[in-house]
């Protein structure tokens, strides 16, 4: 029980990453694969955030009085996640727009049926 409490964030984030990877590898529908990509991104973001998270912590503003270093949340992972979210949005947007064009060409989103090139 203690193990789960200590590593809850890591279990959750790796769980999400693996679920996303499973969807990308197994599902045949392109939209579902893109959803899997999005789930995987979320898992990675949670992993990064949980690296520096402190329960009940606050932003490290050094001019504020009575703020001990042990109560500060590491701001670097949060800055990374902010960037990673933006990049993730760009990838998902591009993927969805490509999926639309692909549907217009083939009339299906099943990747087993889209075989212009050898998949």
């Amino acid at each position, binding site marked *: 029980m203690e193990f789960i409490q200590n590593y809850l964030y890591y279990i959750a984030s790796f769980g999400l*990453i693996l679920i*996303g*990877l499973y969807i*990308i590898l197994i599902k045949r529908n*392109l939209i579902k*694969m*893109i959803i899997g*990509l999005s789930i*995987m*991104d979320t898992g*990675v973001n949670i*992993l*990064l955030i949980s*690296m520096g998270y402190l329960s009940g912590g606050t932003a490290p503003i050094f001019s504020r009085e009575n703020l001990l270093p042990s109560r500060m949340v590491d701001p*670097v*992972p949060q800055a*990374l996640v902010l*960037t*990673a979210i933006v*990049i993730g949005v*760009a*990838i998902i947007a*591009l*993927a969805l727009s*490509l*999926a639309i*064009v*692909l549907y217009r*060409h*083939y009339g299906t989103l099943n990747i087993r049926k*889209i075989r*212009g*090139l*050898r*998949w």
Partner: protein
Amino acid sequence: MVSPVLLIAIPLGGAFAIPLFGFISKHISKYIPVIVTLTMLIIVGLLIPEVSTHPIVVKIGGFQPPFGINLVVSPLSLFFSGIVSLLGFLVSIYAIKYIQNGDIEKYHLLFLLFLVGAVGVVLTGDIFNIFVFFEILCISSYALVAYNRDKDGVEAGIKYLIQGSVGSAFILIGIGLLYGLCGSLNMADIANQIHSVNSPLLFLALFLFITGFGVEGAIFPLNAWLPDAHSSAPSTISAVLSGFAIEVGIYAVVRFVWTVFGASNLLHFLAGLGILTLLIGELSAFKQNDIKRLLAYSSIGQIGLILFAISIGTAESTTGGLFQVLSHALSKALLFLAAGYMIYRVGSRDIKEMKGIGARMPVTSFCFLIGAFSLVGLPPFIGFPSKFIIIKSALLTHQGYFYFLVGTVLLGTVIEISYFFKLLQGIFSRTGETGIDEAPMTALVPMVILTLLIVGIGVYPEVVSRFLQLASNNLIDRIGYINQVLGGL
């Protein structure tokens, strides 16, 4: 003195200036990449004398290296930026006439962003920043592969996108793990303390980095996207994708394995992987009927050779590997550019349709011939000194393992010769067709410049070999890198 930041700032500024100039005239957009890349080329030229003596470390925002983001302009990164700007310049001249359909402004915007990504990856000294530039490179190349919006292009684009973004997610997990273990994002700082970290997670992080960057670097078995993406993209994009995008992926893999992790015991594994990549690439190229797919598979083979050479681990072999990077960039770009107009004139990518094109397009076909000879490694072209150095340095290691691998490299070369000669035989066969239908001037000029470079460097390899030695020392000298960046902190 010129600031190396301009190498990133100028193409980035140029990219966002294109839509603004579009308000004045729609035709300006195709000349902006030419001007921008020419400026980058001049900046690289101006930086060479200074970087040859000591690497420049640029502290962005004035923060001392373990904090903040820094750029490390070493001979190695300058060598790669030089290739990026040179090919960028020649390809953007070619693109003036070649890119006629679709949204031309967006093509040139994405092309410049692509260059920003490539230059950024090689210049930066920060593991998160490398991820960001890597994503700029990847996202713009996904869009460029699908630029024609035809069946093949879009399918190849989305395939590339899905595999590439899984790779990027892996890189990000690796960055998270490494930050958790070392508490730093600076490459030199991590390299400094990585041997004092003792955790199985370190191995996981290294594995994730190799997998993630290996997707872009087309290391077997992560290269399923490459033949489709390189063959379906417009020829200009195939030229730059083959010319420097995969080499940038290899650069990132090598940077992480050598400098950041210092994992020299992994080199034998990478050398074997390189040879496997080479064999798979050459064997698949052998049975292709599509000229661009053939060239794409041949790129996989060449990448395998580069990875093998760098993984041998001596100073000379690394020099050979970097020489091979240069030789592959010039030759493969030339081949793709020449193939671009041949396909355009014939109206098909099938090799059988190419019969007799040599009589119709004499200059283009001659350039294609030079490119193919150089790739195979015939003297006096640039491919000869590079392959020669690699094989010589592998034999000098006196290890049975490398003897075996060199034998495989030579076997791969034989296969390469056979399919290129089959292709050339078709191109130069006589069909009785007459009438010259040559490519336009904007296409001939870059091709002739590339041909002259291939022959020139092939005859006088000393021109570049001194700088390449500096670059390879910079790659091998891990402690030197740490000291240069942290300044003996």
